[in-house]
């Protein structure tokens, strides 16, 4: 039974993070945040018309308002009066506020908010079941599997169009691809996926699922195809790790999974090959090698064939401790030798300076 919760998590994570790749690439990650609030307006309006809190129209209206949100954001940012991120903040607070006003003014006696319609607690997912071909499966699993398939089909079919409109919309236009069509198709899928995902796993996780795996993948790849595959991989990884961790420590699944996603992102951010830690290490190593090479180059200059420690140190900005470490290293590797308190190059050291000159494209000593 409980393992179904894991399946719901995984399928939701995959459906959202697949589209999340394109949101990240288009600098629209914030949009999911906006949609997550404005869909309440759709729910409220549909409720006023149907007066039924469980009507499927509430979900449909929520998706429509999601698309509308994106459209209005677009219109506002096209005026160039404010930047896109400001437009997002403006539009979503405005629509959300309208929804709140409507709720408090006209639906005072009904408890109507996101939690009611979009229940959003993944461990309850197995209780709401549906019969498909004689099998009883959680409704959320069924819905999100279908959405996942639609999203996959969309990405496979319009792979090239998604790529070109995300990278270079002007070129796409000249080449005869409507950026607007791709944009709104994508945003419609984002809205529908978001609404279904809210219903299944709750709002915190949805925003996290849309953005975190795609951003993590973005740090590691150099091609869009690999970003998609890796984003799906992180979606599954975070879900599995979040699920088991939450059960082991008896924590909320949504909170734990979000937290795990943050951890995976941080690990990749710090430790990927261009990451913060590796670039620090690499810089330190390069600096060390460079200093050693410069000491050898100095001893290779004609007037400096053998020098005392003080003479060498006067050429560099090194502490005595750093200096001794470099000298020890060079002595140990037989690049230099010490005679009467003076250092000079060994044949091996001379050879090294020769290659260093080639490497740094410096002129050879005469």
């Amino acid at each position: 039974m409980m393992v179904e919760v894991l399946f719901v998590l995984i399928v939701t994570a995959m459906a959202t993070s697949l589209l999340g790749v394109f949101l990240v690439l288009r600098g629209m990650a914030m949009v999911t945040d906006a949609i997550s609030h404005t869909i309440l307006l759709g729910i409220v309006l549909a409720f006023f018309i149907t007066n039924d809190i469980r009507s499927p129209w509430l979900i449909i209206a929520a998706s429509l308002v999601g698309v509308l949100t994106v459209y209005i954001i677009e219109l506002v940012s096209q005026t160039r009066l404010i930047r896109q991120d400001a437009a997002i903040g403006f539009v979503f607070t405005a629509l959300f506020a309208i929804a709140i006003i409507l709720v408090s003014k006209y639906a005072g006696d009904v408890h109507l908010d996101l939690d009611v319609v979009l229940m959003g607690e993944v461990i309850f997912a197995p209780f709401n079941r549906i019969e498909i071909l004689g099998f009883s499966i959680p409704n959320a699993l069924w819905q999100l599997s279908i959405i996942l398939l639609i999203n996959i089909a969309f990405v496979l079919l319009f792979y090239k169009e998604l790529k070109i409109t995300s990278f270079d919309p002007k070129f796409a236009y000249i080449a005869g691809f409507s950026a607007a069509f791709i944009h709104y198709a994508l945003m419609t899928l984002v809205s529908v996926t978001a609404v279904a995902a809210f219903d299944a796993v709750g709002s915190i996780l949805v925003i996290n699922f849309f953005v975190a795996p795609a951003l993590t993948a973005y740090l590691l790849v150099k091609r869009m195809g690999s970003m998609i595959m890796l984003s799906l991989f992180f979606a599954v990884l975070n879900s599995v790790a979040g699920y088991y961790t939450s059960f082991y420590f008896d924590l909320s699944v949504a909170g734990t999974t979000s937290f795990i996603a943050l951890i995976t992102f941080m690990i990749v951010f710090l430790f990927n090959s261009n990451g913060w830690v590796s670039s620090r290490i690499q810089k330190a190593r390069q600096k060390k090698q460079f200093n050693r090479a410069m000491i050898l180059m100095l001893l290779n200059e004609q007037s400096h064939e053998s020098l005392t420690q003080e003479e060498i140190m006067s050429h560099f900005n090194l502490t005595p401790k750093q200096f001794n470490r470099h000298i020890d290293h060079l002595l140990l590797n037989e690049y230099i030798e010490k005679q009467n308190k003076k250092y000079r190059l060994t044949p091996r050291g001379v050879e090294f300076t020769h290659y260093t000159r080639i490497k740094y494209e410096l002129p050879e000593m005469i």
Partner: protein
Amino acid sequence: MTPLITVKDLNVAYQEKPALWHVNMSIQENSRTAIVGPNGAGKSTLIKSIMKLIRPVSGKIEIEGRDARHALKRVAYVPQKGEVNWDFPATVLDVVLMGRYVHKGWIKRPNRKDESIALSALETMKMEAFKNRQISELSGGQKQRVFIARAIAQDADIYIMDEPLQGIDITTEKLIIGIMKQLQQEGKTFIVVHHHLDTVEEYFDHVVILNKTVIAEGTIGSAWRKENINRAYYEMSGSHD
């Protein structure tokens, strides 16, 4: 000779402020046409209008007598470097392959043949060694060469470039000009926004001198004159603000 591209009474404004004013001009087929003018003269605005990327207040753009919209696929655009997202996860070859998308239409993916066309475009631009490099790891001149390779892979008739020589070294500059002259032999037309007045004569055979409106246009021999240049660069400066 009927011109390839005709611009008829084009007016463009950004929020009330006119950027182009009564622009009438034409581009001759198989020419290498430079568009020159001071900063803010509307050069980028003009070429974007020709490609229908900007909606003008009024005016017409025609390619071979028909609205330019119908002929956009024949145009290869080499944007200013800053115009695309260089952190996009794509390799050099991915970007050059995009030139082939024009011939594919919706949904169909590029195939082997497209790939070999893209590779030979990279060879032409002496960039084949970089084909698997991520685009963010390129220098400014290499980025420019990738864009031109994409235009070559597109196999367009009309090449529109916005300052392709900006911030690149002399070797790359000569390479690009050489390719341009060679493609002209094959019948292509070039419209290039150019910033260095001292090389206009050497690199181009036609010129449009622009400052909000057309100061002069035509062959280098007829239009590239001191008095025209002075009018565009000195006499008019500040008079439109």
